[in-house]
């Protein structure tokens, strides 16, 4: 897969590095040539210094043969324009953009361009983490028989093994978020203070999960 990325800031460089490490070919465009230093020395892709709206610059980065096009520059209007140019002029099959400002969302959705709105995402995530309703489901499956619950765990459970939460047919730990990273826990994974844990839980067992998290560790 060939991916063209507009913007070599924190997001663009991280995405470019990851895709490159995964064996994809990557063309990165940034108007500031200094941003090339954000890419690792091992980066095998193309870096083009220039204006992302120039046809010659886009072509040099491989837009004509691109399978995907990502615009993560710091300029929202540039991201919208570049995304639409990639999709409708160069017919890139998969185009994703990033917006900081929610105010741009109506125009991008009007144009049918897939955009990730970072400020909105951050606010939603933080709001959810601040909400003192730990057992509100993140996802509801089927007709509500199974739920995905994300919750912090009491500090005194630090050191216990994550799988001790599992109750066959009722509760299953699926993921642990720690220090901004997410891990799939193994048999030996232990809980740390501040962990956020995702549980798949049968709705009929919500009370049981609540009591685990509320302090009665009745295994």
């Amino acid at each position, binding site marked *: 897969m060939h991916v063209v990325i507009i913007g070599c800031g924190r997001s663009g460089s991280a995405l470019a590095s990851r895709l490159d490490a995964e064996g994809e070919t990557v063309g990165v465009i940034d108007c500031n040539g200094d941003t090339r230093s954000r890419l690792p020395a091992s980066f095998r892709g193309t870096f083009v210094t220039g204006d992302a709206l120039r046809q010659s610059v886009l072509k040099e980065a491989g837009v004509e043969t691109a399978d995907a096009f990502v615009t993560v520059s710091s300029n929202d209007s540039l991201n919208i324009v*570049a995304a639409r140019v990639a999709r409708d002029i160069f017919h890139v099959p998969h185009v994703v953009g990033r917006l900081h400002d929610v105010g741009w969302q109506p125009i991008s959705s009007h144009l049918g361009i897939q955009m990730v709105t970072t400020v909105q995402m951050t606010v939603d995530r933080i709001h959810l983490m601040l909400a003192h309703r730990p057992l509100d489901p993140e996802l509801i499956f089927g007709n509500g028989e199974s739920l995905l619950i994300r919750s912090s765990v009491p500090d005194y459970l630090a050191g216990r093994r994550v799988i001790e939460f599992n109750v066959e047919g009722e509760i299953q730990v699926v993921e642990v978020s720690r220090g901004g990273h997410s891990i799939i826990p193994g048999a030996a994974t232990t809980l740390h203070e501040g962990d956020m844990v995702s549980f798949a839980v049968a709705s009929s067992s919500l009370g049981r999960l609540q009591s685990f998290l509320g302090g009665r560790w009745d295994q």
Partner: protein
Amino acid sequence: MKIIVAGGGLVGGQVARALIASNNQVMVVESDRETAASLAAAGLEVVTGNASVATSLEAAGALRADVLVACTERDEENLVISIMAKRHLEIPRVIARINDDANRWLFDAFWGVDAAISSAGALVALIEQTSD
């Protein structure tokens, strides 16, 4: 005519004044508070807000406007304003300023642009012709 000038910088301010002088009803949309305040102090009608956000244009009376001039100092912004003015707000005539001539290839009907000009003088002349 009712004309919205999106972007009240050096060029936008001149365009607005010239249009007012030829008896048009002009509303300027400017995101920078200081610039907006000085335009207002000079007697222009100004809406302070980001012209690429539909609500700012609606506040400027976009739904009744005959012409919109996308006149900011950023070409990508002028393109986004133009497509929104034409497609979303259905303003009959959309004129855009090109800051960097290398971007001229983008300024066409694909972005809702009816006419595009790359220098302030030409822009003023064109708008005055159409408003006669």
